[in-house]
C-alpha cells in the first residue's frame, strides 16, 4: 500500500508526457488511442484465467464491432510502481486508462489489489462508451461522443480489465444503467457502540456493523479460543453458544450479538474444573492438532445439554457441522458418548 495516494487525473484532462518503459513518451503517441494498463508485475494465474471469461463477454457483447482495426491500438502494460504510475496517480493500484487520439483521458478505473474483477463493471464501461450509432451503423466521430476508433479501443480496454484490474472502485464512476448501478468508492465505515455479554461478563466495544462476532471476539476482545477455519459457515471451528444453543460466530454479526448470552470456549470451565465434555476430550485424546477442538467442544457441550442418549450414528449426524482435518472423529464420538451417559 502506498503511503499516500495521489489524486487521479480527472476524465477529460490531457495526460502528462510520461515516459514509457521502451523510451517513448506519451505525446509521441498522439494520433492513436492508447490503453495504459497498470498492474503488479507478479504473475497471477487467476488473472490469466479470467482473461478468457472476459474475452468471451466482449465477443458476446458486440461481435460485429471488434475488427482488425483495433489491433492498431497501442498497448502499454506498466508496472504499478513505475514512474508513469506515479505521474498518473495510480501507484500500487491496478488501473486501466484509456486515452484518445488527442492524448485526453477518456476513461479510467482503479481497483484495490486482491479484489475480484466484476463482469458487470466491464459491461458498464462498454455501455458507457458505446457511441450513438447513425442510421448507417457507423459511429459518428462527434465532438462530444467517442470516435469509432476510440470505441474500438474501449472494447479492448475492457478486455484488458480482465488481465489487469480487479474491479470495485471505479475512479471515475461509470455512468449507471438500469442493470448496472454505478461503482462507487467504498464509503467510510461508521462504527457503532455495542454491549456484548460474553461468558457472563459485559463488554462494551465499538465496531463497524460488518464485523463478525468471530472477529470481534478474537481481534477486539482477544478471546482467541474461538477459531477461524473457513469463515463461511462450513467448518464449525468458530462455534459458540448463543443463548445456550450452538451457533457459528463467523456468520453472526457482532451487532447481532447484543442482548444475547454469548458463551465461548473460555467460559466453559468453572474455574479449574473442566466442563465434562472438556474432560472427556482430554481423556479420549479427541484431537491431534487441536485447531477444530474449541468448536467441537462447544458443539458437543450444546448437544449433551438435553441429556438424551444418542447412538454413535446420531452423534455423527448432530456433529456433522464440525470438520476435523486430523480426522479425530472416532475419539470425538467416544468422548461425547461418555459425557452423555455420565
Amino acid at each position, binding site marked *: 500500500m502506498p503511503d499516500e495516494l495521489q489524486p487521479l487525473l480527472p476524465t477529460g484532462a490531457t495526460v502528462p508526457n510520461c515516459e514509457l518503459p521502451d523510451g517513448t513518451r506519451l505525446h509521441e503517441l498522439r494520433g492513436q488511442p492508447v490503453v495504459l494498463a497498470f498492474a503488479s508485475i507478479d504473475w497471477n494465474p*487467476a488473472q490469466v484465467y*479470467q482473461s478468457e*471469461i472476459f474475452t*468471451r*463477454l466482449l465477443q*458476446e457483447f458486440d461481435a460485429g464491432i471488434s475488427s482488425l482495426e483495433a489491433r492498431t491500438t497501442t498497448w502499454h502494460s506498466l508496472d504499478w510502481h513505475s514512474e508513469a504510475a506515479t505521474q498518473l496517480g495510480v501507484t500500487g493500484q491496478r488501473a486501466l486508462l484509456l486515452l484518445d487520439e488527442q492524448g485526453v483521458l477518456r476513461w479510467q478505473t482503479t481497483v484495490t489489489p486482491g*479484489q*475480484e*474483477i*466484476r*463482469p*458487470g463493471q*466491464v*459491461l458498464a464501461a462498454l455501455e458507457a462508451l458505446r457511441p450513438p450509432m447513425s442510421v448507417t451503423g457507423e459511429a459518428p466521430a462527434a465532438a462530444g461522443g467517442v470516435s469509432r476508433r476510440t470505441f474500438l479501443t474501449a472494447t479492448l480496454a475492457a478486455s484488458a480489465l480482465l488481465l489487469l484490474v*480487479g474491479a470495485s472502485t471505479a475512479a471515475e464512476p461509470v455512468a449507471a444503467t438500469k*442493470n*448496472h*448501478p454505478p461503482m462507487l468508492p*467504498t*464509503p*467510510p*465505515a*461508521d462504527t*457503532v457502540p455495542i454491549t456484548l455479554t460474553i461468558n457472563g461478563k459485559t463488554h462494551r466495544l465499538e465496531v*463497524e*456493523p*460488518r464485523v*463478525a462476532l468471530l472477529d470481534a471476539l478474537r481481534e477486539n476482545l482477544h478471546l482467541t479460543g474461538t477459531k477461524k477455519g473457513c*469463515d*463461511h*459457515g462450513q467448518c*464449525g471451528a468458530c*462455534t459458540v453458544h*448463543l443463548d445456550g*444453543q*450452538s*451457533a*457459528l460466530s463467523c*456468520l*453472526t*454479526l457482532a*451487532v*447481532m450479538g*447484543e*442482548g444475547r448470552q454469548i458463551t465461548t470456549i473460555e467460559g466453559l470451565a468453572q474455574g479449574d474444573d473442566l466442563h465434562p465434555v472438556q474432560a472427556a476430550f482430554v481423556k479420549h485424546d479427541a484431537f491431534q492438532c487441536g485447531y477444530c477442538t474449541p468448536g467441537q467442544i462447544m*458443539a458437543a457441550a*450444546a*448437544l449433551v445439554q438435553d441429556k438424551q442418549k444418542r447412538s*454413535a*450414528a*446420531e*452423534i*455423527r*449426524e*448432530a*456433529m*456433522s*457441522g*464440525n470438520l476435523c482435518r486430523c480426522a479425530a472423529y472416532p475419539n470425538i464420538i467416544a468422548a461425547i458418548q461418555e459425557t452423555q451417559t455420565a
Partner: protein
Amino acid sequence: MYPFQYQRATTPEQAVAAVAKVSGAAFVAGGTSQLDLMKEDVLRPSLLVDVSPLPLKTISAFEGGLRLGAGVSNTAAAIHPEVQARYPAVSEALLAGASTQIRNMASMGGNPLQRTRCPYFRDPAQPCNKREPGTGCAALKGLNRVHAIFGASTACVATHPSDLAVALAALDAQVQVTGPGGTRTIAFPDLHRLPGDTPQQDTTLVPGELITSIDLPSFTGRSHYLKVRERASYAFALVSCAVALEMDGKKIRRARVALGGVAHKPWRVPAAEALLAGKKPSEKLFRAATEVAFADAKPLEHNAYKLTMGRNLMLRALLETSGLQPLQGPAGTAFAASVGGVGGE
C-alpha cells in the same frame, strides 16, 4: 465485506418501511445465507434490517393446521412435536439440511429465500445474470453438473437449494407476507419463480415484503422427504423429493409430489399427481408416474444423471410414503430422509 448500515427491527411494519424506503436495503434473519454472500462480495446491501428481534418466533395452531412464525428457527420447527407427527416431511427436510449450528440460526422466513448455490453466482469474477444481469451465464457452457433440468432459460440454469421449500411446496403451504402495499397470502408454489430473462428475481416478493409466517394447512395424510447428496450429511441436495399422500381407503385420493435440486424453484409435477389420483398404490403405478414426471426434463451437458437419479428417488419416495417399502429411519428424522444413510452407518 462492503460496509453497510445496520438497524434492528422493532415491529414488522417498521422493518418493512425501513427496507422499502432505502434502495439496496435487505432483511437479515439468521444471516447464514445473507452474510455468507456479503462476505463473498456477491451481495452489497446498503442497509441491513435485522428482523431476528421481531416477535415472530411462535408455532401455533392455525385453521386446523400450524402457523410457523418467520423467526422460528429450523431446529425449533424440526423438533416441534406437532410438526414431527403431522408433517414429517417438514422435519425430515429440515433435519437433512445444513448442520446443527446452522439450523439453530436459520429461520422459516430466511430458508426459502436463501440464494442459489450455483458456484458461478457465488464467484464475483464470473459472469452471472443472476448476480449481474446482462453479463451472461457462466454455467450454461461451464460446469453444470448441479444445475437445472426443468424450467431453465438460456439466461440462467440455477437450482433452488432449500430442502424445506420442497416439502412446503408439496404440502401447499401458505406464505403470509406484509409489505409496503399491505398484507397478502401467497401459495407456496407461487413464492418462487422461473428464471426467464430476469433471473436476478428469485421470488414474486416485491422489495420490502416481509414474510411473517409459513402456514401449514390442515393435512391428515402421510408425507415424506428424501434427499440424495454427495456425502452422508451436511451437503446440499443433488436431487430431492417430497411426497404428500392422502388416501381414500386403499386408493390414493390425492398425491402431491415436489422435486428439489432440479429447477429454479421446488418443482411440482402435476401430470404425475393426476396420474396417481384415484388409483391403488403399486410399484408399477409409481414407475409410470416417474416417467410422466420426467418426460419434459431437459438436461444440460453434465447433469443428465439427474433424470435417472430423480426417477429412482421419486419412485422410492412414493414407495416409502405409501408404506409399500419401509422408511430408512424413524419418520421425521434425518435418518428417514437420507439416501445412503447418515453418520457413516
